[in-house]
């Protein structure tokens, strides 16, 4: 299969009708498998480090019978290996992780074209964030693509703005961070006009905003139909808030009920995102569109954990075609009937005895 064939196949698969209810049993397992296995064969053939990885795991396209058999690449491998089917220099865009660990080495995802990424993003966003309308007034609390060309989130939010924002939408940022005055004026305006408003940003962008509102003694009651969008957690970029605390403050600060506060779960190592149906209850259940599937596994054996038990998440994202479609995350989760509950990064266990664990060693050796 050539790259063009793959892209064509994926665009068709993403665009395919999907009238079934929102459960993991959507796009039939067979249809998903067929595409996943073709992608596996394509990546196996065109990506040498991935082929080595697969053979090391004793797995080849020949012996994989379902997407569950495709070896999941640990996301750390994105830092050590060049995972790309096309020559990396031919990539139209490279998204990089923020590089907060492993000595600042950043994981890279090479995209020869963003057509599949964009199709995936827009269809997923429509399905989960904008099911009831085509456009909405938006304020974005994140830098633009021009400022952060390697940030997949910056691109994602630019797409949201272009495809789903009204002409009154825009970035609420200035050089030193959030443009508070402009933002508050806009929110006042929305409140008065009764036009629904959507605020989108990294989770950690909302923390200083809430602090600033507290300092100024401000709170808003945005009109019905308004919604909030956050993603990515706090990552040490802001104070850490508990999920309930965070969504309570968002609800109180903007007058948007918690069930209209949508959290998106995405990664640089994916081209498709997961969403919840609001955060009335935390941790919420996340699900994704029909071209992504997840497993909850024991990371050591690679076997699924029994239904309802905590494990580590594996995602098979057909849209991430040029890199590797099946990745092993560092996120703990529990499978549910209609998706999974995300429990955050799986914590390193401290040794049960007096032996030193890796994390402590690194800390101690740095000290």
């Amino acid at each position, binding site marked *: 299969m050539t790259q063009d064939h793959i892209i064509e196949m994926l665009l068709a698969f993403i665009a395919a009708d999907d009238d079934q209810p929102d459960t993991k049993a959507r796009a039939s397992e067979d249809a998903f498998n067929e595409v996943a296995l073709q992608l596996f064969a394509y990546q196996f053939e065109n990506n040498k480090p991935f082929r080595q990885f*697969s*053979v090391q*795991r*004793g*797995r*080849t396209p*020949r*012996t994989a019978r379902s997407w569950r058999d495709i070896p999941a690449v640990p996301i750390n491998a994105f830092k050590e290996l060049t995972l790309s089917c096309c020559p990396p220099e031919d990539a139209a865009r490279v998204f990089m992780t923020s590089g907060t660990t492993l000595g600042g080495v950043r994981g890279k995802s090479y995209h020869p074209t963003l057509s599949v990424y964009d199709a995936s993003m827009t269809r997923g966003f429509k399905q989960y964030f904008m099911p009831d309308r085509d456009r909405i007034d938006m304020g974005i609390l994140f830098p633009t693509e021009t400022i952060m060309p390697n940030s997949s989130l910056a691109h994602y939010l630019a797409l949201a703005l272009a495809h789903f924002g009204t002409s009154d939408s825009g970035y609420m940022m200035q050089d030193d961070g959030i443009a508070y005055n402009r933002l508050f004026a806009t929110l006042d305006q929305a409140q008065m006009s009764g036009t629904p408003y959507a605020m989108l940003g990294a989770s950690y962008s909302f923390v200083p905003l809430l602090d600033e509102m507290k300092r100024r003694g401000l709170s808003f009651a945005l009109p019905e139909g308004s919604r909030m969008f956050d993603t990515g957690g706090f990552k040490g970029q802001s104070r850490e808030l508990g999920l309930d605390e965070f969504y309570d403050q968002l609800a109180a600060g903007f007058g948007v009920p918690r069930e209209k506060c949508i959290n998106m779960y995405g990664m640089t190592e994916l081209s498709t995102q997961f969403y919840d149906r609001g955060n009335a209850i935390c941790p919420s259940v996340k699900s994704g569109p029909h071209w992504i599937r997840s497993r909850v596994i024991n990371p050591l054996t690679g076997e699924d954990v029994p239904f309802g038990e905590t494990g580590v998440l594996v995602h098979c994202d057909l849209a991430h075609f040029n890199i590797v479609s099946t990745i092993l995350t560092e996120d703990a989760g529990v499978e549910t009937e209609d998706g999974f509950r995300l429990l955050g990064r799986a914590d390193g266990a401290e040794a049960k005895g007096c032996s030193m664990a890796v994390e402590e060693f690194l800390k101690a050796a740095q000290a």
Partner: protein
Amino acid sequence: MDFTDKVVLVTGASRGIGAAIAKAFAAEGASVAVNYLQSSDAAETVVAACRQAGGDASAFQADVTDSEAVPVLVNNVLETFGKIDILVNNAFRPYVFDPENRKMFWELDWSHYQTQIDGALLSTHGLCKAVLPDMRRRAQGAIVNIATDLVARPTIPYHDYTTAKAALIGFSRNLAVETGPLGIRVNCVAPGLVYPTEGSRDTKESVKDMISAQTPLGRIATPDDITGPVLFLASPWSGFMTGQTLYVDGGLVMS
């Protein structure tokens, strides 16, 4: 025994005992590399039968006595199936088992012996060396070598053939000692006269009757009789056995 997700390389698998072994593994879900020398059609038939039986298979042409061809064979299997869990050394030089027209000792040259030794031992040696790196990396593996019960009871003295197979058993025991600490088991299956096979096609009825009469289970072996013990020695059921030879001849040899 479930061999799903196991990869088996069977040499000389386009016909006879080798083909039966390949199909038996496939029927238990294995992916089988069907090695053959000449008969590509026959090999493809075995491959089709393997898939029909519920496993997966591919044919791999290689002269296993060619020391350059063997590593290429193993590498091709690894590229296709990702690993080799089980190696069955079944290939041997063509030999006609005809008691009445067999060569007597004084009619044999060393070259006859050499031919059989190459067929049985040279190929096994090359293949074992070639699969070891993959098995060692995973600290597990099973090797099953096909010998003959004539080693224990030369009912008919096929000097060159049986001597080569006797060497194969000695070879296997030594290898078993060496690779035991690495988690790799090496065993032999020693069949009696098997009919029908290429080598036994011309064996006279009277000979078969003679052997059957001396066999407690009252008949000679079919290729399918050989597969059970081979699968057993390749499976975790024999996880604490190495360096052994199982005689599969209806009780003709008891040891």
